[in-house]
């Protein structure tokens, strides 16, 4: 099956605007702007069942419909801050298939009546931002952005904004703060960005992969989009596969593809004759799935969609599937994840800021074999006290691996001082 999002794998030069045009490029934007009302675009995307690909899985069309039509201007902001450990899909889209992505951003702008859109890239994506700036200039030159698009009264302009190294800016309200020139710290909600967003105006924030689906949905309609995936999780998804696997990389597959197909058919299985011990399907923020002989088939036959991954005690998130083989123990794994979250906690909420500080102390001590059994209990208790007590999800995310590691891999936490 040809790719829908990673089309550069079938059409290598698609990052060239002429090649993109020869392959149907900008036809969807033209169709939307010249033949559809903005509300019709919103309805089509709602009907497609497209869900946010950044991790939360919220229905995109529904999100758009929250924007009030008596407050203007509206903004579209694209979240290209891709920073979850294990996630590297947006980078591939923007690097190799930039015009499809930008066409998607423009369609979103048209749908919600925004004349301006910002693309917020993590600072490390400096070369990608340079390339996107060149693409935007080319689109403006050829009349796909700017004023009077396709001879209509529609105006759309897009701009890039570079972050500077902060995972928290992938959180949508922190991202808005960052564009406004402030430290990237989450806002209290409500009000939600759909009403009070960028510069206090109604704002839609969508992930890169989400937006890259839009040209396909406009071209093929909601029914065409639903040819892939499941009833509740339609479409294809890019699975970022990493860790102890023979062929790490991005795989574009229908939602609902099983772990077995991703890991063994596409990923080539676990290298060096080792056994798969654990899966983190949503990056460092995952609850850890234990894979031992008793549940191996059950886990492997689980379809990877927003509903079914929950049935094996985790979540799909942004589908950044990290595989861990039997040479690693979970005390090491959570020491890594907590090191990350402690560094990335923005410091605004005390439970997250101080909780991660103490969790790091405890995981270091446990991993070094210098902890008492009481320390393991204390770690679990600190995690429990962080959970649900912060303004944004980072605090919760930091606890997922910790609590499930202790619960599901008790033998890894017995290496303690007598």
């Amino acid at each position, binding site marked *: 099956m040809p790719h829908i999002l990673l089309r550069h794998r079938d059409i290598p030069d698609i990052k060239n605007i002429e090649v993109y045009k020869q392959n149907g490029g900008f036809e969807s934007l033209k169709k939307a702007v010249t033949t559809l009302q903005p509300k019709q675009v919103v309805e089509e995307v709602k009907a497609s069942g497209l869900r946010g690909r950044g991790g939360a899985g919220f229905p995109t069309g529904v999100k758009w419909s929250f924007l009030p039509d008596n407050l203007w201007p509206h903004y579209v902001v694209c979240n290209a801050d*891709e*920073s*979850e*450990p*294990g*996630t*590297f899909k*947006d*980078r591939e889209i923007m690097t190799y298939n930039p015009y499809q992505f930008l066409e998607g951003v423009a369609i979103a702008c048209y749908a919600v009546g925004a004349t301006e859109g910002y693309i917020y890239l*993590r*600072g*490390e*994506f*400096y*070369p990608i931002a340079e390339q996107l700036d060149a693409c935007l200039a080319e689109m403006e030159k050829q009349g796909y952005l700017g004023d009077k698009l396709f001879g209509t009264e529609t105006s759309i302009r897009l*701009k890039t*904004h*570079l*972050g*500077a*190294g*902060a*995972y928290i800016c992938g959180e949508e309200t922190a991202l808005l703060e*960052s*564009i*406004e*020139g*402030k*430290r*990237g710290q989450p806002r209290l909600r409500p009000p939600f960005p759909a009403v009070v967003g960028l*510069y206090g105006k109604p704002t839609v924030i969508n992930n890169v992969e989400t937006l890259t689906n839009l040209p396909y949905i406009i071209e093929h309609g909601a029914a065409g989009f639903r040819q892939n995936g499941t009833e509740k999780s339609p479409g294809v998804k890019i699975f*970022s*596969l*990493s*860790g*102890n696997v023979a062929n*790490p*990389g*991005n795989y574009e597959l229908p939602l609902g593809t099983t772990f077995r197909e991703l890991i063994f058919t596409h990923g080539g299985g676990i290298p060096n004759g080792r056994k798969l011990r654990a899966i*983190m399907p949503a990056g*460092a923020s995952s609850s850890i799935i234990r894979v031992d002989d008793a549940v191996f088939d059950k886990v492997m036959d689980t379809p990877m969609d927003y509903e079914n991954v929950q049935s094996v005690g985790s979540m799909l998130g942004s589908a*950044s599937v*990290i*595989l*861990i083989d039997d040479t*690693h123990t979970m005390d090491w*794994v959570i020491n*890594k*994840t907590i090191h*990350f979250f402690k*560094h*990335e906690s*923005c410091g605004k909420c005390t439970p997250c800021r101080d909780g991660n500080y103490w969790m790091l102390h405890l995981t270091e001590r446990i991993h070094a074999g210098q902890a008492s059994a009481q320390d393991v209990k204390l770690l679990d208790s600190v995690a429990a006290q962080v959970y649900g007590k912060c303004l944004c999800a980072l605090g919760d995310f930091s606890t997922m691996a910790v609590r499930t590691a202790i619960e599901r891999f008790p033998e890894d936490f017995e290496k303690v001082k007598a």
Partner: protein
Amino acid sequence: MSIAEKYTDEIQAIFAKYPVKRSAVMPLLYLAQRAEGYITKGAMAEIADLLELDVTEVAAIVGFYSMYHDEAAGKYRMQVCTDLSCALRGADAFLENLCQNLGVKVGETTPDGLVTVEAVMCLAGCDKAPMFQLQQGDQVSYHENMTVDKTMELVEALRKSSKQVDE
């Protein structure tokens, strides 16, 4: 020379991007970093003036974001990802061997001032570990599927090209 004099056109383009002046702070900090390799106190004061902000607010932004540096380091910052996915593919051992070969510890700079080695958080290069980014001023490049040998060759090439520029 002040940043405003050095990058007049770029600063105009940055201001034109946003409806609010303050939004220019991050791009302006990158310009300051390009100028000196790090963000000096003087640059922070100038940016605060340009944006009508208190210098403390600008310093708070410099401190918050990990890609801004308020102290000089090597000409290049070699930032190795040692997060979970990369660590599962040997990033910790790579970093340790690299440091041994360069004769530095993590966070230190080679004696010739060329490279500062740092361990950083996930860079979205998980499938091509070991990997690192090279940061120089406001520029970044990725180096993936690296070995210590390949990295040492790269360092040699950087050393040669810096010498040529200096001469």
